[in-house]
């Protein structure tokens, strides 16, 4: 959409495109980090993952 200035909508400036790309990368890293986090928790806790003492 943003690559076709003749279409209706906002055209991102190069700086805005750079920021958007940085945000996308940050979200990707955060999601990958979460996957690793849950994997590590599962490995470390093992079956105890289902035991949640008060």
């Amino acid at each position, binding site marked *: 959409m943003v690559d076709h200035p003749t279409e209706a909508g906002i055209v991102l400036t190069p700086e805005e495109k750079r*920021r958007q790309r940085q945000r996308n990368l940050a979200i990707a890293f955060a999601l990958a980090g979460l996957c690793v986090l849950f994997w590590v928790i599962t490995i470390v806790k093992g079956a105890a993952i289902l035991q*949640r003492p008060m």
Partner: protein
Amino acid sequence: MSLVDDTSSIERTALVSQAEPRDFIALLKPRVMSLVIFTALTGLVVAPGGLHPVLAAISLLCIAVGAGASGALNMWYDADIDALMARTAKRPIPAGRVAPGEALAFGLVLSVLSVLVLGLVANWLAAGLLAFTIFFYAVVYTMWLKRWTPQNIVIGGAAGAFPPMIGWAAVTGSVSIESIVLFLIIFIWTPPHFWALALIKSEDYARAGVPMLPVVCGEDETRRQILLYTLVLAPVGMAPWFLSFAGLAYGLTSLVGGLGMLWLAVDIYRRREGAPARKAAGRMFAFSILYLFALFAVLLVEQGVVARIF
């Protein structure tokens, strides 16, 4: 010609995010977060019993992220007054880099995520305490107390005092007298620390309409309150030694640090005019950070490292 030319900069900021990842990190208040990590780590290490080091690290991460999330919610709600104060005008929302809705969503998502993961990793008491801390800071302090009463930071200070208690609860699954004492140290430390800052920045707070103690009750009353709270803080700071869950090194550190705080509080009380008064408040603000850091650092080393080796 693009449509951008026909769109005002304000409308454009609302439609196109100008944020960079570092702006979202700034929403987490990294400096506050570092103190939270440090005090929560002390709670985790000093607590009796053990938690797997990896789970302890993840618990610490959850507490840090939860604290950061409450900071983001605080910045979302306080964007209007942040814009009026020199100290906070460059924060991501008043500076126009992050839209309020982005900050709100960011804060809410991180809040829920941090609480749920802490519950899964440690226990639900620790997760409940973290949830309460976020609620207390974002709702009780930010939305209610901050703009309503000069006692805002006295009561709201509880939010900053919970991390060592959460760390302790993550290990033990309980709240005990020791963790309450750690809570009390930060709780009673908060008023003299922030009022020293408020004495320096009182014009900022007055412009923003925040009823800090110097704005509402005057600087002399603030100096009196700083002295009174410091008189209580000095013995409370030594309580871990009195209660025998800290050793001689902590006892001496808390004694010397407490006397230093008292000396600076008396100095603030006596110097009431001009540059010497501002310098006295600045010294108190800086030393109070060092004092709290020293107490928790010594406790951490003494009980977490030395006591486990010897």
